């Protein structure tokens, strides 16, 4: 009975101590941000500066939200979740930028095709052809 009593008293204390130790080490690790979050933060910045709102708005918004969620998860001590969200935020922002760049290129292509069409019309219908000798 005495051992049981001692066990009953000591066990929670030991667990609590373990928990505190765990928390302490968690807190210590919190001081270092996971590299996923740091990278995501930079990519989101870059996407915003690149004006990815127009063609990658959905992805950019998702990236911003996930970056916020990652910070929150980090504050809550869930480093794993924070790292995952950070990685996803980074990829969302990368996709937003890729979409914006692609859209820009498609736009340039459309303009070029338009100018080619205009030139062709000018060449065939614009009277640059020499009139036939009588």
């Amino acid at each position, binding site marked *: 009975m005495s051992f049981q009593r001692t066990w009953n008293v000591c066990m929670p204390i030991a667990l609590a101590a373990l928990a505190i130790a765990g928390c302490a080490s968690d807190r210590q690790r919190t001081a270092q941000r996971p590299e996923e979050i740091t990278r995501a933060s930079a990519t989101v910045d870059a996407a915003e500066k690149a004006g990815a709102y127009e063609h990658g708005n959905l992805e950019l918004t998702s990236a911003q939200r996930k970056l916020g969620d990652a910070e929150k998860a980090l504050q809550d001590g869930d480093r794993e979740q924070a790292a995952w969200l950070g990685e*996803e935020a980074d*990829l*969302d922002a990368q996709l937003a930028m*890729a979409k914006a760049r692609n859209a820009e290129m498609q736009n*340039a292509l459309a303009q070029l095709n338009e100018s*080619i069409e205009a030139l062709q019309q000018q060449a065939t219908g614009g009277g*640059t052809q*020499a009139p036939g000798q009588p």
Partner: protein
Amino acid sequence: MSTKTKLSICAVGLAAIAACSHLPDKVDTLEQARISLRNVERDELASEMASSEIASARSALAEADEAYRDKDSLDFITHKAYVAQRYTDIAKERIAEGRAKQQIAQGESRRNQIVLQARAQQAESEAQAAERRAQEANRQVDQASQEADAARERNQSLEQELANLRPKETERGLVLTLGDVLFDTAQNALKPGAARTIQQLAMFMQDHPDRKVLVEGHTDARGSDEYNVQLSERRADSVRDALVGRGVPQDRIRTVGLGESYPVAGNDTAAGMQANRRVEIVISDESGNFPGAVERAAG
């Protein structure tokens, strides 16, 4: 160990088993990512434009599959599927961008070709137009020189024909003077010797039907003015009649008697008076006008 403890251990074990066996038959997002990646990999530009993204997608997909086999947490598998899907999406954008870039390069060279062609065509048509202009100019020069030749010929023949009549170029045009020798004193009838001169003049007028003549009679100062005007008129008329008699239409001949008003020499010597007794014939230009002709009248 109390039954309570045993029970709680059992519960933890069951919970663990439950957690492990909780994975679904397939993770939809994972399968979706697999299909997307397969589609993108099939693109001919995939390896050229997005090799690193595709490699990342493949490795994320492999990690997800491995986690599924190891019965890892669904959250991790879903996360890896998301990563694979995102890399695939980025790869797709890169490929589309690269394809557009290639098309732009092709389009630019095509546009340059069109511009060059148009320029060449324009240059050619300009050259053709210049050649036509040059030909036209040459033609005009030829025509002008032909016309000049013809005019010179006409003038030469005119001068030749009239040479025998000894015409004088005056401010009134070409003027022939038929001297006193053609008429007897105070007579208006032409002497027979005048026939040759009249014949030459008539032939000249037949050769040049566009020309007209003005026949002016002049006298010396002897006799009254009135008499002299009448005499000069009669002499001019007789020259006209002689021309008409040789087939020159009358409407091409104008006559006027100017009496003694326009002497060409002094009337104080016999030679001067002889010079003043004369008929002058003024020849019109090709339009039948007397451009330099100051209208003369007896006064």
